């Protein structure tokens, strides 16, 4: 299941729905929640705005799910990404994988968030005390970087 939305989401509710949908097929659920930090490169973040490419974004997220499902034995997956203006500590992204065993769930979850960061057409623009700027893909926490 993939969703792109401006509204917040409830990770607990999403996990519960995944548990119900997989109906005894999964022995493990691993999830990742990404949040807006309050500091980047020494500047206090006032707002983070997420832009995306409607139409292509949904296709990219479905392709990521399908790759994960082809690679691991998964009972269910979730990818939710928010767009629009966000504040520090807001949730940005949620990824979850349910599987019979924990290893597949861990690996699929990590694969989906890592691939999302390089393949899905989202862009972050941050407003800080120093002004506004689009984040570059070479900065920490962006594609190709650790964490």
């Amino acid at each position, binding site marked *: 299941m993939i969703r792109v939305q401006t509204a917040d989401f409830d990770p607990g509710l999403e996990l519960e729905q995944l548990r119900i949908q997989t109906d005894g097929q999964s022995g493990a659920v691993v999830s990742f929640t990404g949040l807006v930090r309050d500091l980047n490169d020494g500047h206090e973040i006032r707002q983070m705005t997420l832009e995306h490419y409607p139409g292509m974004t949904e296709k990219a997220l479905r392709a990521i799910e399908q790759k994960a499902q082809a690679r691991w034995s998964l009972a269910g997956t979730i990818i939710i990404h928010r767009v629009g203006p966000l504040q520090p500590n807001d949730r940005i992204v949620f990824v979850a994988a349910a599987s019979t065993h924990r290893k597949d769930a861990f690996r699929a979850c990590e694969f989906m968030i890592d691939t*999302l960061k390089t*393949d*899905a*057409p*989202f*862009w972050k623009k941050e407003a800080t005390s120093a002004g506004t700027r*689009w*984040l570059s*893909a070479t900065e920490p926490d962006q594609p190709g970087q650790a964490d």
Partner: protein
Amino acid sequence: MVQLCYFSSLREALGTGDGQVELPGEINDLAGLTSWRQSRNDTWRQALADTRLHVAINHQIVNTNVPVNNGDEITWFPPVTGG
């Protein structure tokens, strides 16, 4: 007609979008299309010369010079930074 789109910092650098555009008869591939848009002015010339840009045609990333056809949606954008 083709649909031309620009996202993120690229759209802001260009200052305007394109939307639906009638393709001149002599333009039939991505390289030709890019050069044609670059010929608008120096801002477009420089912005679209950025080698880090990605191009998608009908939502599929393309890495080579491919044909463009009427009805295509061609989109330029910087490396993604979501997640």
